[in-house]
């Protein structure tokens, strides 16, 4: 199997699983959708990899729509960890370490933590350890409430940030960590989100204007979570989510939007 063929198979499998999760989240069908996804797959290994790719969002129906986690589904997720074991030691956070393995480690932790919580196996230890750190944002000074008093022009003029730690890059990285934007999880990444609603709102707006709807939807997940927590946002997330629902495409984006709408609650259109 060529790498290209392999990529296509994995992507198709992840899309299939995202659609199954979406259906359950919408109340279309019932139980054991993760196990079914593996059983029905032509390539079960790809199906197990897809579990890790969709990650914690597999549990959105259980956290947000009262679906019960079936033992078969719990076993399928556990099998994915057995077949593709995460590194024993968590990677160093950027800038000391590379971003991608560190983001993957956070996503694995989120999946493992929710599996343990929903399956009641928290005492057994997690198959994926919790990484340290959160995406670093250096232009925090700007996250004061708009119009708030500051120390004058010097303050705004001196908000120095490198390309890697400005709100643009930071918000994209938070988007890559969007499976953590679920109500049952908490940690340093969530604390980073709560500390920077302005940077998240700017990042979502930037992605919208760049017509990068998948990134906009991922960042908007965090805005929706903060809204659910009662954090005051610089923009109204409701029309943003609806716009994404009507303009974006693909199962992955549809799942992000559906999760955001659930987080926003009955206000969502």
């Amino acid at each position, binding site marked *: 199997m060529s790498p290209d063929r392999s990529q296509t198979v994995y992507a198709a499998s992840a899309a299939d699983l995202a659609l199954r999760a979406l259906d359950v989240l919408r109340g279309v069908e019932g139980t054991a959708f993760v196990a079914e996804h593996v059983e029905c797959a032509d390539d079960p290994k790809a199906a197990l990899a897809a579990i890790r790719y969709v990650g914690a969002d597999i549990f959105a129906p259980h956290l947000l729509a009262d679906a019960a986690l079936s033992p078969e589904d719990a076993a399928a997720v556990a099998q994915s960890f057995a077949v593709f074991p995460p590194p024993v030691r968590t990677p160093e956070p950027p800038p000391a370490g590379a971003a991608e393995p560190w983001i993957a480690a956070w996503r694995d932790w989120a999946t493992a933590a929710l599996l343990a919580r929903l399956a009641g196996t928290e005492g057994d230890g997690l198959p994926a350890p919790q990484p340290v750190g959160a995406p670093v944002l250096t232009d925090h000074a700007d996250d004061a409430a708009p119009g708030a008093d500051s120390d004058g022009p010097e303050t705004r003029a001196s908000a120095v940030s490198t390309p890697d730690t400005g709100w643009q890059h930071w918000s994209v990285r938070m988007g890559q960590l969007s499976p953590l934007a679920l109500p049952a999880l908490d940690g340093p990444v969530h604390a980073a989100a709560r500390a920077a609603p302005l940077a998240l709102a700017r990042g979502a707006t930037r992605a919208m*204007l760049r017509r990068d709807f998948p990134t906009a939807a991922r960042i908007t997940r965090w805005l929706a979570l903060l809204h659910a927590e009662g954090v005051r946002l*610089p923009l109204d997330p409701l029309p943003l989510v609806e716009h994404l629902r009507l303009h974006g495409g693909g199962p992955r984006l549809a799942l992000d939007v559906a999760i955001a709408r659930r987080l926003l609650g009955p206000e969502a259109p």
Partner: protein
Amino acid sequence: MTAPVTRTAHQVSSRALAWLHAHREYGALPADTTIDLGDPDSVYKPLGETALAASLVLRESAAGSVELRLAGDLMDFCWRQFGEGDMLYERLLRYSMMTDPLETYVPFARCGFRHDPLERLLAHTSALRSVRAVEAVPNRGLAVANAARVVGLDQGGRGYDWPTLTRATWLGATPEPWLVDWMTGYCATHTVFHLTDWGGDPTGLPDDIAAYVTTWLPVWIDIWAEIEQWDLVAELMIVGCCLKEPYCAPADWERLARIQHPDGLVPRDGDPVPDDPDQRFKDHQHTAVVATIAGTLAVSRTLGGAADPR
């Protein structure tokens, strides 16, 4: 930390101003120009914009003596082009409903170049209900109101309804920031320019709109810089200078300095710049005007100047 912005902004604006000055003859009105102006946007409007930039250099007085001399020269040049006001007067005599004679006159009136017959005619015309009710996009209504304010035509019961004019604009609605487009971006910048009289009175911007602009300006600058729309980027950088708490990011100024040509030309966008000097001027004169204003205001604001609060 303001020093790098001040220095870079001064460099950009002084070079752009020198470029406008050196190439001013390319912007002269053709010899056969009449007040009918088949294409007002070709030379007439750009001349007025050059005068605007020069008038703001003189108003702020934050530049060096060379820049002040060049700005004074440009004011003289543009004023002569307009027949020392006669052309504006004759155009308004013929076209009572048009607002451009008033708007073009503003930078001159600001700097003491007055034309009494034009002012008498403007005082009459601008008070007519017919002229006040001319249909235009909302930010144009603010342009006229600010022009009348600068010339002093809004006295004695002839004031403009600023709150209603403001709320009619796109920016006045504090809209979803993620839907702005290129043309609307220009509308938003001009709403801020007119409400604050080009940064002369930052308090002219209502607090909720100032907070809105402060929140979203970095995003808009970012996305239009990415696609190299330098003219709009520089306009947005003027907007940053019009806020009570100015937004002048060092990286934005370094980027504008990087794209400026050694001779002072500031390209309007990422397309290749033509070699033909006439075409170079026609294509990029507006961006030089915008860069001159942006740099002038950035120098003034980072040095602590907030112009005269009204």
